[in-house]
């Protein structure tokens, strides 16, 4: 039996985790919890999406890669964030690579279970929509900073502060 999210001290501070007691119980039923080591790969860009990962603690690095192997760091995700949401909901392959920066506890929810859970819990579905909107805002911000700065050097300089 896995520990319930009900006992989590951080639950109320995290928009996604802050569900009603009934929903939490249901969520406990579909989640898989694990502690993964530093540098563990949660998912890789281009792989078919299996489900979402919720970071209970620790940080994860999100990056994208070109065919020639160049890597661009998008951002660092912190505790309470839901990763792989976009790919999981649309059923496409993961659009980024997520790699843990610390040894951390993560919760995994399978795609099928998540969709069913969201259908039954409209308020959480709404929260997911909000999450996705924020992700999208961040991505457009990034497009702006990369695409509209003229010199290549200026782009590189802008890339770094975003990593924090």
């Amino acid at each position, binding site marked *: 039996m896995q520990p319930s999210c009900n006992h989590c001290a951080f639950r109320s501070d995290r928009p996604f985790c802050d569900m009603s007691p009934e929903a939490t119980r249901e969520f406990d039923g579909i989640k898989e919890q694990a502690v993964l080591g530093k540098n563990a790969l949660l998912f890789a860009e281009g792989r078919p999406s299996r489900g979402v990962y919720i970071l209970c603690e620790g940080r994860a690095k999100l990056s994208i890669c070109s065919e020639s192997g160049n890597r661009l760091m998008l951002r660092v995700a912190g505790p309470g964030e839901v990763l792989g949401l*976009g790919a999981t909901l649309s059923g*496409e392959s993961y659009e980024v690579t997520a790699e843990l920066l610390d040894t951390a506890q993560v919760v995994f929810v399978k795609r099928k279970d998540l969709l069913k859970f969201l259908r039954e819990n409209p308020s959480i579905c*709404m929260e997911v929509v909000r999450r996705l*909107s924020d992700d*999208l805002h961040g991505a457009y911000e990034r497009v702006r900073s990369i695409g509209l700065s*003229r010199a290549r050097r200026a782009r590189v300089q802008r890339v770094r502060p975003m990593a924090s």
Partner: protein
Amino acid sequence: MLSPYGLDIIESCLTCKMRADQIFCDLPEAALQSFEQIKYATAYPKGAILFVEGQAPRGIFVLCKGRVKLSICSTDGKTLILKIAEAGEVLGLSASVSGKPYELTAETIDPCQVNFVKREDFLRFLKEHADACLRVAEQLSEKYNSACREIRSLGLSHSAAEKLAKLLLEWTTKNGEGAKQEPRIKLALTHEEIAQMIGTSRETVTRLFAEMKKRQIVQAKGSTLVIRNKTALKALATT
């Protein structure tokens, strides 16, 4: 109904024939009924601006017919086209949900029919209809996906030639010609607009097209571009 732009206005979503093919529009009967109550069907001419980046969100625009150019702008006036949205897409979605200013500018490039829904009405609608909420999540995911692709192409490509080759290849897969030996693309955008899509200048795009024609990689037939040498184009895209 006759309209000034030669558009057939679809007054009701309930009788819309294209509904089944669109992710957002294909809602269950009950949700559709209440969507019908809150939407305003409007028509816009070519070149109309639906919303401007930085504006407080008024609501969402469901594109029924026509195409809309989505772009972002820098403070010194440079424009970058992110996407040409087509029928069935919902515009201004993430801004309306999060309440942050619109992050893009949407401008029609054809006469368009657009169904507008006010922000408060839309949020209430989503709360009441879980199905619609999931559809919205799906749409947002798709947009996120394409934003990531854009970041990849802008941030990790080295040359304008590489980006142009990638764009042409993407268009061939989109219009279903990707598998053919000599795929054809109908160029609906000007060189200026193509330049804005890949973040370069109009002059560079014109020069690149001329070079590709000289090397027999592409051939122009009116506004149709025939890709004569797909292998060479792919090689350009991966350098």
